[in-house]
């Protein structure tokens, strides 16, 4: 199934543009890299998740959910007492309101109204049917709650106890104790051995199994995702790939990130093709609306740079780091194992900053050819790109050796070998701190206030790195940032000297 949105085929976004994409990377890497770049890009698979159909009606959504949850409409009519039907519908929607936030924001207002009505409905039922609750107690199912049971045997007790935890995702809270205790007592239930509200709350918290709610939510999410027509297509494509170890491992990642689409725009996953024992790459874009050209080029460069080190063990190299591959065996899973091997992915942040440089250069070249790929042409503003101003000179002054270091398995090109462990660790620490610990807005405001200049980005900060008057006036993290710039320059010089010994004296950007 081909899904085309805004002229882009979401199952194959490169299409006839693939040659231009290859040419762009060749222009950046050099002609001698063409065979590698061709082989890598031709072996890539793309998964876009296009949950962006603004024309989808509520009726379509309801049908989709009913199908996903395996519920027949007739069950509602037969098994639920007439007066509860409406509330059951509200409840069902409430469980899914986070789904709406993520996937169908255009319908959010409608479902906010539904949620409000849910609360009103529940309170109305509590008041109206108080007298009849005692005889209904016999219908209460046990605490091993399942969706099917809830549909068949839903009672007011479950409505009240379940609706709030579903909204917030965790158990009954202290601040809501009185509400829950009252609801439970209204149902005619007793708190065995409880003498005060605190004990009653603890009783309810035990009674209400949080893990059952989490399992239920996971179940609902998985059913929804597995019944999504597009993701069914993803599963079919995965079936067609020859993935060592099976598709399940990758499928799980795609499902998780479909739900976590607000938390990452893209990722790449390496796998070993079973018959050829070659390393191949799947790129996943959990939200098609966020797919920029630069993002696609970023993931393609991850693919170009990935080198298989040990097919049996499933160990590869990506950027400057040693990584695993789907289908590899064994996969290091514990911190102890990872720590023994090395500090896990110590280069990750620095490596991503470097990859962002590649991404930007390759995208510029692609655009200069008049080619675009993604659905969104906004400028790249990823978190990684915030670190680029500090390392741009470092990368461009040492591009030839960085290129070797990232595409070859020979350890003589590793940064640890070239710089020594201390300097390479320092480089990683600087990159980690700049990306994770330093807030661009806070630092720019601090520097602006202390220097009287208008500083609005890290790019502006770097432009002042030789201004001693400015540096003298700073303290705290702002001062540290400028100290980092000096250290990066120093490490860059060390790398420049080392590369002459390793590559000879022929290396300038694009001249190798």
């Amino acid at each position: 199934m081909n899904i085309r949105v805004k002229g882009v085929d979401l199952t194959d976004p490169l299409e006839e543009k693939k040659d231009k994409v290859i040419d762009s990377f060749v222009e950046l890497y050099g002609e001698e890299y063409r065979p590698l770049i061709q082989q890598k890009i031709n072996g890539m698979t793309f998964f876009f998740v296009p949950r962006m159909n603004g024309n989808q009606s509520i009726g379509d959504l309801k049908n989709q959910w009913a199908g996903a949850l395996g519920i027949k409409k007739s069950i509602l009519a037969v098994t639920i007492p007439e007066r509860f039907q409406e509330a059951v519908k509200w409840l069902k929607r409430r469980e899914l309101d986070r789904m709406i936030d993520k996937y169908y924001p255009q319908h959010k207002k409608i479902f906010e109204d539904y949620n409000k009505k849910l609360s009103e409905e529940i309170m109305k039922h509590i008041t109206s049917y108080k007298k009849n609750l005692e005889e209904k107690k016999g219908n209460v199912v046990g605490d091993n709650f399942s969706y099917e049971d809830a549909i068949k045997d839903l009672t007011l007790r479950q409505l009240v106890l379940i609706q709030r935890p579903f909204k917030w995702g965790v158990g009954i809270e202290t601040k809501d104790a009185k509400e829950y205790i009252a609801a439970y007592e209204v149902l005619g239930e007793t708190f065995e051995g409880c003498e005060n509200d605190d004990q009653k709350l603890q009783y309810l918290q035990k009674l209400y199994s949080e893990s059952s709610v989490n399992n239920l939510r996971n179940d609902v999410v998985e059913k929804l995702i597995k019944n999504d027509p597009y993701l069914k297509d993803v599963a079919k494509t995965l079936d067609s790939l020859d993935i060592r170890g099976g598709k399940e491992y990758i499928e799980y990642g795609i499902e998780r990130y479909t739900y976590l689409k607000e938390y990452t725009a893209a990722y790449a996953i390496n796998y070993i093709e079973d018959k050829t024992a070659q390393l191949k790459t799947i790129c996943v874009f959990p939200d098609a609306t966020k797919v920029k050209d630069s993002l696609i080029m970023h993931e393609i460069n991850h693919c170009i740079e990935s080198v298989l080190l040990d097919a049996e063990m499933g160990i590869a190299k990506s950027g400057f780091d040693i990584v695993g591959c789907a289908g590899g065996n064994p996969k290091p899973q514990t911190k102890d194992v990872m720590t023994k091997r090395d500090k896990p992915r110590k280069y990750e942040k620095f490596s991503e900053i470097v990859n962002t440089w590649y991404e930007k250069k390759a995208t510029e070249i692609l655009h200069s050819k008049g080619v675009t790929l993604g659905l969104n042409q906004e400028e790249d503003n990823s978190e990684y790109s915030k670190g680029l101003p500090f390392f741009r000179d470092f990368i461009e002054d040492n591009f030839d050796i960085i290129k070797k270091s990232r595409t070859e398995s020979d350890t003589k090109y590793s940064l640890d070998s070239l710089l020594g462990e201390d300097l390479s660790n320092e480089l990683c620490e600087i990159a980690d701190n700049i990306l994770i610990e330093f807030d661009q807005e806070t630092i720019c405001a601090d520097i602006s206030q202390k220097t009287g200049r208008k500083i609005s980005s890290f790019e502006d900060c770097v432009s002042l790195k030789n201004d001693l008057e400015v540096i003298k006036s700073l303290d705290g993290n702002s001062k540290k940032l400028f100290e980092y710039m000096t250290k990066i320059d120093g490490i860059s010089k060390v790398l420049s000297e080392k590369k002459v010994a390793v590559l000879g004296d022929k290396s300038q950007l694009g001249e190798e």
Partner: protein
Amino acid sequence: MLVEIKMFSDIIKLNLVVDDKKCLIVNGKEKNVNVDSFVFRLKKIVEEWDEFMIDDSIMDGLSYSVSISENGSKKTYEGRNKFPNNFFSFISLMDGVR
């Protein structure tokens, strides 16, 4: 008690701290939330977590860490591209303060 949460990806940078004055600060900005309730929920969520989870085959993606220091002891939970079963509850909690 001190709580520190960090999340990082290509599109997310979240640094959350609950300090000893019970202030909840997200990316340098104090948030007006019920800190007791937040910490109660967080503790309930992470009690099921392993200390370290990683999917080592993914480039980019999401990394996270949660550390809770209390009464002289510190528990830390870290992960990268692999998530506990109740991670959606954690995301729900973070969505409430972001």
